[in-house]
């Protein structure tokens, strides 16, 4: 079986076997899983410096752990930092359990604090980070101030295995219920998504060739280059479209495809790194349509993210 994705749209002959290998038939019930996670402590090596794209050393600030003062809706270059994410990064000390945490937690999932000064309080998963398997969660600011690295949390994982929202479009890393609060319009055969901007796949750096359920995609953008791509106003929580990228399994180049990602962390001075998106939707451009709005786009707000766990707050 073959599938033909062209700029004119999608034509497929019957059901392409290769493309349904990981698709969940509609009607199957998702299962929820309770996952254990620990609030990360930011860590560095014995050398305090990293080297930026111009060869200048810098001390990385905000790369993992608990970061105060960075919130959904902030500009991705608003705070000096390296991969700074809003809220806290959650990990598991056992590597295999960490990969499972990253793979099975989804954007929109509730997080409850079980130990420490913030015990009993709640937050929401808003993204992932790659390599070791990290989950990014936002919390109300007064909760975040009480969190401490090492605090134990429970993540209610839900969303992995979700059925295609429309034929040929794969959903990843997000609880399907959360699509309702994002600028996503479901048609009978197409999904239309409002995004900040549309970016070419060549801008994807770290994360390319890696499994998208466990790794985000860094956008190789700087404040200087962002203007060329209508990305100067890029904010945490924004949706962006990446053209010619298939993110169903590993992320890789596929002409005529589109991947929608949700911005989960800020910029980075490191070459090949930058603001990171967690892939949430991917499919042929004929079925998955992106409508950019560089100045007016509204992605995932902190309020909407925390509304998803309002009953637990």
């Amino acid at each position, binding site marked *: 079986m073959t599938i033909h994705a062209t700029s004119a749209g999608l034509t497929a002959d019957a059901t392409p076997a290769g493309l349904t290998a990981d698709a969940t038939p509609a009607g199957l019930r998702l299962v929820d899983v309770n996952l254990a996670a620990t609030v990360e402590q930011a860590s560095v090596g014995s050398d305090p410096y990293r080297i930026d794209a111009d060869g200048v050393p810098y001390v990385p600030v905000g790369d993992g752990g608990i970061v105060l003062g960075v919130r959904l809706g902030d500009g991705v270059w608003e705070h000096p930092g390296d991969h700074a994410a809003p809220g806290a990064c959650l990990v598991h000390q056992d590597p295999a359990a960490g990969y499972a945490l990253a793979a099975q937690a989804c954007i929109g999932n509730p997080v409850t604090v079980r130990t420490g000064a913030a015990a009993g309080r709640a937050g929401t998963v808003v993204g992932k980070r790659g390599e070791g398997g990290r989950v990014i969660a936002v919390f109300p600011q007064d909760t975040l101030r009480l969190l401490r690295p090492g605090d134990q949390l429970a993540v209610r994982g839900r969303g992995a295995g979700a059925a295609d929202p429309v034929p040929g479009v794969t959903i990843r890393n997000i609880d399907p219920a959360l699509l309702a609060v994002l600028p996503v319009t479901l048609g009978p055969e197409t999904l239309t998504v409002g995004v900040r901007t549309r970016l070419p796949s060549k801008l994807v750096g770290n994360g390319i060739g890696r499994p998208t359920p466990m790794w985000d995609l860094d956008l190789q953008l700087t404040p200087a280059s962002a203007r060329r791509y209508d990305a100067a106003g890029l904010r945490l929580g924004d949706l962006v479209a990446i053209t010619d990228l298939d993110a169903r399994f590993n992320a890789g180049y596929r002409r005529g495809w589109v991947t929608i990602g949700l911005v989960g962390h800020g910029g980075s001075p490191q070459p*090949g790194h930058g603001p990171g998106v967690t892939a949430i939707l991917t499919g042929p451009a004929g079925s998955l349509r992106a409508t950019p709005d560089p100045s007016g786009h509204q992605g995932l707000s902190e309020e909407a993210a925390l509304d998803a766990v309002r009953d637990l707050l």
Partner: protein
Amino acid sequence: MQVTSNAGQLVTQVLAGEVWPPLGDRHGFRVDPDGNAFLLPGMGGVTLGAHCGDPATGYAADHLEPGLSVRHRDPAANYALQYLTCVGNTVVVTTGPAAGSEGFVIGQHAYVLVDLPEPTLRSVTVGDQVTVFAVGQGLALFDHPAIKVKNCSPRLLAALAGGTGPDGRLRVHVAARVPAEAIGAGAGMASEYANTDLMGAYEVGGEELSLGLQSLRIGDVVALADTDHRYGRGYREGWLSIGVISTGSGRLFGHGPGPSTIMSGPAEAFTIIDDAGANLAVLAAVLPQKEHA
């Protein structure tokens, strides 16, 4: 390459390495571009039948590492081995039936990759020890300060075609020009470690995956458009990196044949000359020439 450099001032470090086994996990299979499972050889150990000048693709293999794949058991000593070893360095097999045989480094891929003549390669196996005469990091071109040279042995520099042109630019012969869209796994990593996988040269899948790179050969010198690899591997419009194809066939999506970086700088510092003969095979002509003391 006709160019003045500090090659005569470089020091050589003698490094120990070990032919490292292919590694797997209990689930075995990995996933190709269309979601199909595969289980293929190519990475780690001793891989026969693929040498400089041979096609890079067309094998039933994944992450094809030609020849020997070499590491060190101690993590920090291994980083030194991976970072300090340069393309073109001499490698001597020090244990096993092939002890005393000499080959050369064709690149890095989280392993140091070593090409040996095929009859010699047949008698090397996992666990055999090798000695690498590492020289090249710190190499600088006096007349091209904007170009950062890395992972390039003085012997390779001398053997490459081209050199300083009458306009002051560095003339570099390349077998292929690689578009920025092809840059796959390896982006964002240190450019002294592993290599840049190129997408769009798979043995499977449809035309929509192709980026026209199926004719690459192992050892080809290539130009990577819009990349700045001076301090890591990143996208940068108007910059250029030169690499040497050190790995072949890749079935894993987002992966593929990959160049080890040997130079990087602003595009205007280079004159790129298309030349199908631009391949590490030129080293064969200078192999008897020792570059270490």
